């Protein structure tokens, strides 16, 4: 509606301007066709000259008053609106900036918290690993001691077996060497007596 009214006002102003222009253009040739002295240098010419000036000035003033005000008001309104939007954008940016700062501050706090938690976990892991390592060392030590003890027992057993074998082999050799026929007969008799005792027993 505003645009229609604006166009209607502009059309009406244009009509007035055209009429004034035609009147001025029509009067100038009429004045020029008259023979005689130059009217422009005459008082009447001067009056018309000023009248023409005032008319043109009035038309220009009217046009400026008619169309310049809304134009400049519109421009001022647009500029004010742009300024207002810019202020809003600035406020929003500041708000975002503050939120970002807050977030950054909380991120720093979180980072510190995570760092402390990681340090605590690392310390507990170190303690746990130290404990496990100690336990493993104990187990390895116990296994080594058991293995050494078993090897010692096996070695002792083997030594005993070797010693016993050597002793009995030596004894057999000595018996063969020194056993007389009478002693061998006595051994046989003892065996027979043992059989007889078995019978009576």
């Amino acid at each position, binding site marked *: 509606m505003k645009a229609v009214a604006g166009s209607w006002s502009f059309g009406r102003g244009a009509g007035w301007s055209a009429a004034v222009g035609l009147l001025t253009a029509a009067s100038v040739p009429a004045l020029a066709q008259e023979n005689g002295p130059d009217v422009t240098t005459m008082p009447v010419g001067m009056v018309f000259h000023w009248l023409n000036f005032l008319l043109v000035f009035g038309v220009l003033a009217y046009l400026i008053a008619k169309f310049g005000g809304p134009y400049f008001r519109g421009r001022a309104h647009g500029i004010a609106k742009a300024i207002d939007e810019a202020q809003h954008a600035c406020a929003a940016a500041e708000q975002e900036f503050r939120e970002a700062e807050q977030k950054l501050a909380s991120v720093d706090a979180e980072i510190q918290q995570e760092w402390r938690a990681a340090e605590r976990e690392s310390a507990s892991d170190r303690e746990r690993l130290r404990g496990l390592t100690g336990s493993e060392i104990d187990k390895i030590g116990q296994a080594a001691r058991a293995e050494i003890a078993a090897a010692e027992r096996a070695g002792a*057993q083997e030594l*005993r*077996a070797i*010693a*016993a*074998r050597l*002793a*009995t082999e030596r*004894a*057999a050799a000595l*018996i*063969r060497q020194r*056993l007389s*026929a009478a*002693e*061998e*007969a006595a*051994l*046989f*008799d*003892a*065996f*027979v007596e*043992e*059989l*007889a005792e*078995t*019978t009576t027993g």
Partner: protein
Amino acid sequence: MRTVAQHYADALAEVAVAQKNAPAVRRELRDFLGLLGESAQLGVLLDSPAVSRASKHAVVQALVERTGVSRTVRNFLFVVIDQRRVRLLPKIHEAFEAQLDHLEGVARAHVRSARTLDDGEKKELRAALERLSGRRVEADYDIDPGLIAGAVVRVGSTIYDGSVRTQLERLRVQLESQ
């Protein structure tokens, strides 16, 4: 569970004991088995189904007449041939010996000694074994110098060990376990 060989052995032992000629039967059967062992062809002939029963009998009869085998053993051999049990003869003989020993109250002993035993020692040992087993003992003897001294006697499945070698072995085990 009694085997087929055991049945034949028991029957022959009962007949031999009843006729009171067990030692002769034992000897004759042992001789015939020796002959069978020496001549593989004789065993093949007696065991072959291609040879008639009459021919086998004739062969055995000829051998019996030449070696002077008793009728008891001859008839027994005929039965074994007729029943085609010639291959079982070694087992029959083994079971027969055991059964005859059982019927006669004989215990067989195998004696291993480090040296040759004299008659007195053998007599003493046999007497001790007879008292021990409650049966008459018939022993055979071997020399085993590895025993060092003493003797090892086996009667049936029982072993009596009086050797120095075994005593030393026990001593060795005892020393090892200390």
